[in-house]
């Protein structure tokens, strides 16, 4: 029986590993679709940002209560994973609480810590569900935000319910195991005397103590399998979910934009043309023009790899959108939607690759089929979205590149922008004033 379980376990582990590797490969490929961009400078500063923002969750703490709640889940996730290591080894070798004999008195202490965290995670998940469905926090409501449609909502709910189930399974497993140990049943009894009841699961024990030994073993085995299969399934599921940020928050903050938020990415390919047009030395006219690529971005391929990593790192929390002046006043623009659309576009491409191979082309593009001109035109470039994002995503950078495409490749500016352009071109100011009047303001002072 134990041998059979071991085979089953190794198979499950291998299957999860296979799916996970394949997904990671696809996501990596999708991110690398983007244009190159060098983000290898200032490694010290980058490491520092990663430690503070991803590891230390600095930006989550601007809302202290939610920040604390999220921190509990995060801590639980990291620390309970240490326990998963033991569970996996037990599964492979057919052992039971492999680490207990080696750790002696420390072992119960560690498991007690896990249990307290598990209870914390469980309560926080209930709290988070209540925020979504009872308190109805505005930024999560599909009535207010069209990007929070069925899938994003289901995704968020699934994860929370799933975590509650996993934590319940973990605690119930400990409870049934403790009972069996006390009863000295089979190999469970081996640790009797060294390990007692645990701090949280002892309160579940009375609910199970009425069961006979076989019933208890059934509960113990079921919860053990449910917990570990759940975790493996969760790992694969993550890659389809907003919860990918659990992993990607780290590289994504490491590769943060270090420029001042007001600084827009330069386009060196244009500088050369401008220098030639103005007859400025420095540009070599005999040098062939840079590769004719497009100006700005129409599709994900025109964005940089970092924009695409941003899209996969988005937690769909909507802090950006809740701070966006355009969205707040009822415009269609939502920076969260910009990120979700970019990710959706990448996922659609991935699905295409799997169906028809790497040359897949559905004739669609990010600008037009996912994001409309009305959305990007509404942006005031106020950088509130960039400021708010807890994982240092920059939706504005994508908006800016889409705008460049609209203006420079499609020449589709709103009429009054065209007027502003021609004023700058002809009058050196965005308004129709004569450049020779520019200094008239000083007349009254000089009288």
């Amino acid at each position, binding site marked *: 029986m134990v041998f059979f379980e071991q085979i089953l376990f190794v198979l499950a582990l291998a299957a999860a590993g296979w799916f996970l590797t394949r997904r990671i490969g696809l996501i990596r490929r999708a991110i690398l679709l983007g244009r190159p961009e060098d983000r290898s400078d200032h490694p010290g500063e980058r490491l520092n940002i990663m430690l503070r923002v991803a590891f230390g969750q600095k930006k989550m703490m601007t809302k202290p209560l939610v920040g604390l709640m999220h921190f509990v889940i995060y801590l639980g996730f990291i620390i309970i994973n240490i326990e998963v290591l033991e569970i996996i080894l037990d599964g492979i070798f057919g052992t039971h609480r492999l680490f207990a004999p080696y750790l002696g008195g420390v072992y119960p202490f560690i498991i007690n810590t896990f249990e307290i965290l598990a209870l914390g995670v469980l309560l926080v998940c209930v709290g988070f569900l209540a925020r979504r469905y009872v308190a109805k926090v505005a930024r999560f409501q599909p009535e207010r935000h069209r990007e929070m449609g069925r899938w994003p909502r289901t995704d968020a709910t699934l994860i929370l319910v799933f975590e509650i189930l996993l934590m319940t399974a973990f605690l119930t497993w400990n409870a049934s195991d403790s009972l069996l140990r006390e009863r000295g049943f089979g190999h469970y009894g081996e640790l009797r005397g060294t390990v007692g009841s645990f701090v949280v699961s002892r309160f579940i024990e009375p609910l199970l103590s009425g069961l006979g030994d076989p019933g208890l073993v059934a509960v113990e085995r079921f919860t053990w399998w449910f917990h570990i299969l759940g975790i493996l399934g969760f790992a694969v599921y993550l890659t389809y979910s907003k919860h990918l940020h659990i992993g990607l928050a780290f590289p994504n903050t490491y590769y943060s934009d270090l420029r001042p938020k007001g600084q827009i990415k330069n386009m060196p390919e244009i500088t050369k043309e401008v220098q030639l*047009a103005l007859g400025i030395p420095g540009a070599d006219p005999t040098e062939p023009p840079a590769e004719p690529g497009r100006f700005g971005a129409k599709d994900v391929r025109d964005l940089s790899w970092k924009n695409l990593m941003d899209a996969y790192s988005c937690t769909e929390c909507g802090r950006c959108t809740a701070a966006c002046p355009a969205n707040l006043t009822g415009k269609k623009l939502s920076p969260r939607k910009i990120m979700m659309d970019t990710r959706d576009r990448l996922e659609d491409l991935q699905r295409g690759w799997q169906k028809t191979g790497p040359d897949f082309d559905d004739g669609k593009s990010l600008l037009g089929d996912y994001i409309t001109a009305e959305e990007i035109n509404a942006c005031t470039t106020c950088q509130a979205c*960039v400021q708010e994002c807890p994982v240092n995503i920059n939706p504005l950078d994508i908006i800016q590149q889409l705008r460049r495409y*609209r203006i420079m490749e499609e020449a589709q500016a709103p009429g009054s922008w065209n007027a*502003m352009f021609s004023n*700058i071109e002809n009058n050196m100011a*965005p308004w129709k004033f004569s*450049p020779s009047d*520019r200094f008239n303001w000083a007349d009254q002072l000089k009288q």
Partner: protein
Amino acid sequence: MTADTTYKVPTMAEMAANGEEPEVLFWVGCAGSFDDRYKKVTVAFVKILNQVGVKFAVLGTEESCTGDPARRAGNEFLFQMQAVGNIQVLNGYGVKKIVTACPHCFNTLKNEYPELGGQYEVIHHSQFLQQLIDAGKITLKGGGTFKGRRITFHDSCYLGRANKVYEAPREVLQTLDADLVEMKRCRTKGLCCGAGGAQYFKEPEPGRKDINVERTEEALATGADTIAVACPFCMTMMTDGVKNKDREDSVKVYDLAELVAQAYSL
């Protein structure tokens, strides 16, 4: 200094002709040059510069739009034409330090010109005023015109979030001896006035409300009688917002430089 004093506004060209070099170039900007309301700010700032005896100059008719609205709208080509042209002028005069009252010019000159060959020390007039106060060159006597009045400061995106200048304008206001009150959304969380990103130059997209009205409501909620701004576009948006709320009789919008000049009775 008496009211009939004439003020000097030297240009770079005049200075260069006399073989002189200013301490700082005052970059006036398009709004500061052409917008009737903001011209008053330009004048107020020039008066302050005269008053404290800073050796400054302006470019006069040699100045040209920095290209900020073109770049933000997506017209990179036009932006760079402007930028490269301006950099030629600035470098031609050997300009080292620039002060400007426009956060958009400030951001563009400071952050975006270096990549195109224009390296200058650029400061916003709020920082410049703060430095003058710190150096004791401006001393505002307490108990003046502002005593007991409520002022709220509206953060400009291109000053605040874009360049992390949050305290300088507040410190300037603090010296006025007025009651400085904050809006609900301030500093890093400051709400945009709605003008940035070239929005100023077109109608807003369809929505429930105009952004400047939303922001003005927040400013009015503080009970302030003065909304202080540090940007020509915020100035227009907030002024329009106050009008929209029919409060133009009781609530005024002023730039920092104007408030300092008022305190000085310049």
